[in-house]
């Protein structure tokens, strides 16, 4: 894509539609929409991966800001943990953004393929998982948290363990975010939940806060290098916002088991296509 790409009304509508679907799927599966939006822009519309990643990062920022603004004040977001880990994600996203400018398109495509497989595995692993209810009397300590959980009508209290591991996962997530245009929550949330003691909802809300500033680190570099065009980013951002809004209403309380299996299968196909087309 060069700066002179004309935005036709059909192209704008296609990007808007893709954003809407990606946003809705993201909400339904507890992922960001980037993992679906980037392959669509690259494999279907033929955008270079860097351009697709840049557009996707803009949608990640918008989603993060919108979701966090809505949740602020309900104590699900752990601001302290978020700000500790952001120091690692933003340094990672700076490095990833610089690396993206240096490596070939084919390398980025293969990397996307690998990450898509990993995401598929995480999605499948979550099929039957439920949030763990923890002892409400635990002292949260300096980094822990406490929030009211609607399903169990109880206070959930937790401590944060293995901080170095969380920092490392955040650093990797920041790199991957900038390189591939995804939020990186798919890397942080499972680690925070499975090994660092954070309940899934608190981990997801805290990750949603972090991905905004993380994606900004990468997006600034793409913007300065001419890969992030407002004309293409705008319909994607609006689409993802509409999609997330609709997805939250459509899937509330619904069983998304079949959807998870279907999407995992689609991610595997995406991975295969990314590998096949990495030599083109």
């Amino acid at each position, binding site marked *: 894509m060069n700066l002179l790409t004309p935005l036709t009304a059909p192209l704008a509508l296609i990007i808007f539609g893709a954003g809407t679907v990606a946003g809705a799927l993201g909400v339904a599966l507890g992922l960001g929409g980037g993992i679906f939006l980037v392959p669509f822009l690259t494999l279907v519309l033929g955008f270079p991966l860097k351009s697709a990643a840049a557009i996707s990062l803009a949608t990640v920022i918008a989603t993060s800001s919108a979701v966090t*603004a809505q949740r602020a004040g309900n104590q699900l977001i752990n601001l302290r943990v978020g700000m500790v880990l*952001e120091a690692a994600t933003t340094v990672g996203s700076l490095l990833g953004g610089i690396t993206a400018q240096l490596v070939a398109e084919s390398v980025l495509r293969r990397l996307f393929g690998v990450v898509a497989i990993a995401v598929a595995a995480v999605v499948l692993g979550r099929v039957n998982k439920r949030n763990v209810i923890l002892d409400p009397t635990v002292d949260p300590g300096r980094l822990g948290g406490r929030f009211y959980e609607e399903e169990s009508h109880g206070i959930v209290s937790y401590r944060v363990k293995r901080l170095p591991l969380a920092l490392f996962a955040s650093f990797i997530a920041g790199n991957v975010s900038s390189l591939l245009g995804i939020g990186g929550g798919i890397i942080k949330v499972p680690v925070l939940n499975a090994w660092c003691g954070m309940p899934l909802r608190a981990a997801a809300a805290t990750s949603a806060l972090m991905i905004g*500033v993380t994606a*900004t680190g990468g997006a600034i570099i793409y913007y300065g290098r001419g890969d992030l065009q407002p004309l293409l980013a705008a319909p994607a951002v609006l689409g993802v916002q509409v999609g997330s809004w609709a997805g939250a209403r459509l899937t509330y309380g619904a069983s998304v088991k079949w959807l998870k299996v279907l999407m995992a299968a689609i991610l595997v196909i995406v991975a295969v296509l990314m590998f096949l087309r990495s030599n083109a």
Partner: protein
Amino acid sequence: MNRDRSGMQRLETTIGEVLRFGTITSSTMFAIGLVMTIVGYQPAVAQLLLATGLVILLATPPARVVVSVIEYVRERDWTFVLLTGIVLLALAGSVVAAYF
């Protein structure tokens, strides 16, 4: 601890306001700019709206970090001043990598 908690509450509320303002402003500019582009009305103004919307979108998370730094300085919580300072430095690094 009590003072600490009320500070956190205040920070969370302020962050929410910053993010809400950024989201609404940039999305509104995007929507108007896109419609104008598609119908071909005032292309120069439409481009300006889209470009400004994108800059506001990109500036929103850093603005939230700046607000946090200010709050932590007020609370004299130097650990968190340092951590949020690292975030700002990394973002400044992105600006440098983007243009130099």
